[in-house]
């Protein structure tokens, strides 16, 4: 597996710049997990200011507002755990380059949520992030400097 990891540079070296982007995004998500874990799970920040902001946002769809106020806010600690877990899945997957394609789709789903709840001034950032995730999924960024190359060599298919 380790041999395949480095071998990938030789055979799919043209994906190397994408791998750097992937690893950087992985680091970004792991960093986010560390911050959110302290704030929401340990409980310092209690519950996210983002939701208060979101509920005061005029552009938010009414069904999403209902979901926030009826489901997510009353059970915030469970949802916070799930969100942090998903962020960790994205972070670890991007850093080691494992199951990058399906995880990218998961990351797009997370970003769509951020896009809805965060203030308008951060919209452009999340749109760019979505574009990055789609690019990573498109090229199969886990195949270079990632474990996906090992499985791709043996199994082929769309998952790697």
């Amino acid at each position, binding site marked *: 597996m380790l041999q395949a990891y480095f071998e990938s540079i030789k055979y799919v070296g043209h994906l190397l710049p994408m791998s750097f982007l992937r690893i950087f995004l992985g680091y970004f998500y792991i960093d986010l997990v560390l911050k959110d874990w302290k704030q929401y*799970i*340990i*409980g*310092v*920040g*209690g*519950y996210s*200011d983002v*939701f*208060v*902001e979101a*509920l*005061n946002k005029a552009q938010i769809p009414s069904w999403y507002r209902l979901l926030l106020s009826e489901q997510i*806010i009353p059970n*915030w*600690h469970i949802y916070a*755990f799930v969100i*942090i*877990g998903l962020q*960790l*899945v994205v972070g*670890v*997957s991007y850093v080691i380059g*494992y*199951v990058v394609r*399906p*995880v990218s789709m998961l990351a797009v789903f997370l970003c769509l949520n951020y896009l809805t709840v965060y203030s308008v001034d951060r919209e452009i950032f999340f749109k760019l992030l979505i574009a990055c995730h789609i690019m990573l999924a498109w090229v199969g960024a886990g195949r270079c400097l990632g474990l996906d190359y090992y*499985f791709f060599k043996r199994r082929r298919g769309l*998952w790697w």
Partner: protein
Amino acid sequence: MRHFIVFVVLVFGALTAFYYNHGDQVKNIEDKKIHVYASSSFIAKWGPGPELKELFEKQNIFKVEFVEISDMAMAIQKISFENDASVADVVLGIDQFDVTRVANKIKWRDIERNSGVKFVENLGPAAVEKTFVPYDWAPMSFVARKSLKTSVSSLKDLLAPELKNKIALQDPRTSSPGLQFLAWVFESKSGEDAIKYLKQMSKQAHSFSPSWSASYGLFKNNQSDLVFSYVTSPVYHLVEDKDDQFLSIETTEPLPVQVEFAGIPQTCKNCEAAEMFINFMLSPEAQKIIMQKNYMLPVIAHVKEATAFDALKVYKTLPIKFYEQSKLDKWINTWVEIRKNEGI
């Protein structure tokens, strides 16, 4: 697909195991910690927060953790949503308008004060308020440079043609000082006169900034000749900039007073420690820190003696009131109508 599912399950499994292993340690730390919700200017390194925290932690076993709030209404909304899950033990920066406008959205604890705390006389009913404890205050007026050629000694003088577009004011919808000015006008003049005055004043205004700091920035950059601010602002320039060219204007109308309160939400986790923190804020040492860092007056007597604040004039002030929300809404709506008709 199988790889993906196994990977997700593994990550969540590891996270759950980590959570259960560290939960007890976290609880022990949290038992000795109080969470204080305060504005960014209070907890900034140049604000009173860090010194208060250090002093309180020296005197007690409890640790203080500040949580920054950007807006009081949003902070209260957040505590209200969180309900029992809220970690807020103390909320700082509640002014007399917040007390009636937003604070009633959640339940607050009555605060037992240390015996022997003697509040300054100017605080009136604010000193005996059970659920909110005042920790600083200051009269508000217009601040100008000593070089200002126009003589101003009343609200009417502000309508002088030389001051057209030269006064920096705040938007009463978003700024507490802005609302103070509005309340001052309505308290000093009868209904129709107040509306007429506000109409004329809106021509004198350079702008209505969304916050006090934005309007004060305009004044400091010489874009306006006067700004509605705290009478303690000239002391700030004297101490920090060694500049004695600023003065606060005393008007024939008594000045409005801004008071900041601390409160303990009913959902507090370390309620007794929170009460200790608020009583600590009323100690002479803490009051001195708040005065010197926040540039507001202390709520207890004798603290400002032998400091730059001692030289401040004793201003004639309006009695402190907790206005009804309907009254405040009416004033704000009147102001909005006037601004609308001004075409802005």
